[in-house]
């Protein structure tokens, strides 16, 4: 005798670029409304390299999802942030390249990631 399986359909789960674009636009429209903007002309975001966002896919999703919103035709500005870290052992800070996360000075793996995992909205512009 087996327990029945509880089954859900979650069609809100979409490609992550689409999901990120969707969440971004809800922040943009909420902020624009709060600030009394009538039109959003530009949205600036930054993505860390580690997040591996496909910018082309993201831009297409963004341009589709803004249709019919206050941000229709808004320009999207994407800044890619490199992965950087500070070593907890020798305190040096460095840029991580070629997936080597260990400290280039002392070889320690006890490090703190400073940047590279961002998925941030920085600002919106409009009037």
């Amino acid at each position, binding site marked *: *005798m*087996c*327990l029945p*399986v*509880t*089954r*859900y*359909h*979650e*069609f*809100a*789960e*979409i*490609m*992550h670029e689409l*999901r*990120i674009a969707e*969440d*971004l636009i809800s*922040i943009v429209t909420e*902020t*624009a409304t709060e*600030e009394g*903007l009538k039109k959003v002309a530009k949205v600036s*975001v930054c993505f860390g390299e*580690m*997040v*591996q966002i496909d910018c082309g896919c993201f831009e297409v999703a963004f341009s589709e999802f803004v249709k019919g919103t206050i941000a229709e035709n808004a320009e999207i500005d994407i800044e890619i942030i490199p992965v950087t870290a500070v070593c907890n052992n020798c305190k040096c800070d460095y840029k991580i390249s070629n*997936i*080597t*996360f*260990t400290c280039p000075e002392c070889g320690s*793996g*006890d490090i703190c990631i400073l940047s590279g*995992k961002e*998925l*941030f*909205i*920085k*600002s*919106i*512009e*409009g*009037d």
Partner: protein
Amino acid sequence: MEIKILKNILNKNQNMAVQVREHLRGKKILMVNIISSPGAGKTTLLEKTCEALTNRFRIGIIEGDITTDRDARRLQKYNIPIVLINTGGGCHLDSYSISRALESLDTDNLDVVFVENVGNLICPAQFDLGESFRLALLSTTEGDDKPAKYPMIFREAEAVILNKTDLIPYTNFRKDNFKADLARLNKNYHLFEISCTRGNGLTDWFTWIGGKIEDVRKS
């Protein structure tokens, strides 16, 4: 007019993940987020794990599956509570779907929840589900370059399982390359080299995960 915002775009997912983590901590439940490519052996690993641990622990499963219930049906024979989330093409689970799935589970009577994420090495890595830790599963037939190609998941995994080690002689998988890349990415992982079909290395995994479940139960 420019308006500065500086906000995490996935803020809503993150906030829900924090709530899920708090809820599970209160119930003393370990939740493992299993991430791998399609076909790496997530469901087979769960079958073996259920076979070995259902007599010691109360296990619940959250199955992420794009469209079918095949994985969930494979696990039904263990007579454990299973919640299936069909994502309809979506490439990852998020904390909202996990929160809803947990509502269907009797969390007063569980020690561990295994979440089988949708088979994918990129997208699931961005979405915190509120799990206790992430388990990255790789099979040898996928190639030894996967940690280098998908650094985020291998960097953040507390446990890495290399499955299908019995097939290494028939592939060009180089274990030394794999381990060297992994060591450059992550200094704090536990590696298990297993073959689910042959049973190699599984005892170490059962001992380790059993210890993790016990630690949370006693916390």
